[in-house]
């Protein structure tokens, strides 16, 4: 027998984009964004994540936070695939200005330049910026 909530008619699926522009530990934005992304994923929405400006630092490999007494939440980005959040984009210009490449990142991403990202933003129905 199916559970009652499984009989609910499916709601509309909207295109959600999360724009991450902050470094991971200096402010709470990165962690809050991750929480909200997981909520949207639970509602089976069409989720895209963008990492640009200092947001690219959120997915930098090798974070070891013991020394600052803060939880290292970077492994969670690797778990997003399990929630069918697989559209991850990084802005090319942001990576390059910080001397980084995709080899520095904990997850596979698509590298888009600013014009490609702008076009992708235009396609979205909901954009949440952190």
């Amino acid at each position, binding site marked *: 027998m199916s559970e009652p909530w499984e009989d609910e008619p499916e709601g509309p699926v909207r295109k959600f984009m999360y724009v991450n522009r902050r*470094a991971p*530990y*200096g402010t709470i934005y990165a962690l809050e964004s991750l929480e909200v992304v997981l909520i949207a994923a639970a509602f089976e929405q069409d989720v895209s994540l963008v990492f640009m400006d*200092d947001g690219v630092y959120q997915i930098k490999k090798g974070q070891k*936070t013991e020394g600052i007494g803060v939880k290292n939440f970077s492994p969670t980005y690797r778990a997003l695939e399990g929630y069918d959040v697989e559209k991850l984009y990084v802005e090319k210009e942001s990576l390059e200005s*910080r*001397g980084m490449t995709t080899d520095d990142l904990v997850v596979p991403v698509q590298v888009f330049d600013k014009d490609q990202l702008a076009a992708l933003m235009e396609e979205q129905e909901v954009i949440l910026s952190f």
Partner: protein
Amino acid sequence: MAMLHTVNKSPFERRTLDSCLRHAVKGSAILLIEDGVYAAFKGTVIADKVKAALSDHKVYVLGPDVSARGMDEDNLIPGLEVVDYGGFVDLVVEYDKVQSWL
């Protein structure tokens, strides 16, 4: 009276480091902490500015903040010195006063 300047904001997002460098007199020291540590690495658009500062200032970077952010100490701009929290305290004691550029 030599001063210790601390910078805790990302140089890519804020102008805090620029303000600090504009007002730090020769012989004063700069300590990069929290998101300020992103200024400390080679290959960025900020690196030349920090390299130039090394001619007038000792520049330190807080190791635990570097590790937390997954940044590689081997990739630091040459001439920068890594300190731990104990070293941070030593610097505060060594210099006459501290200016925190928030």
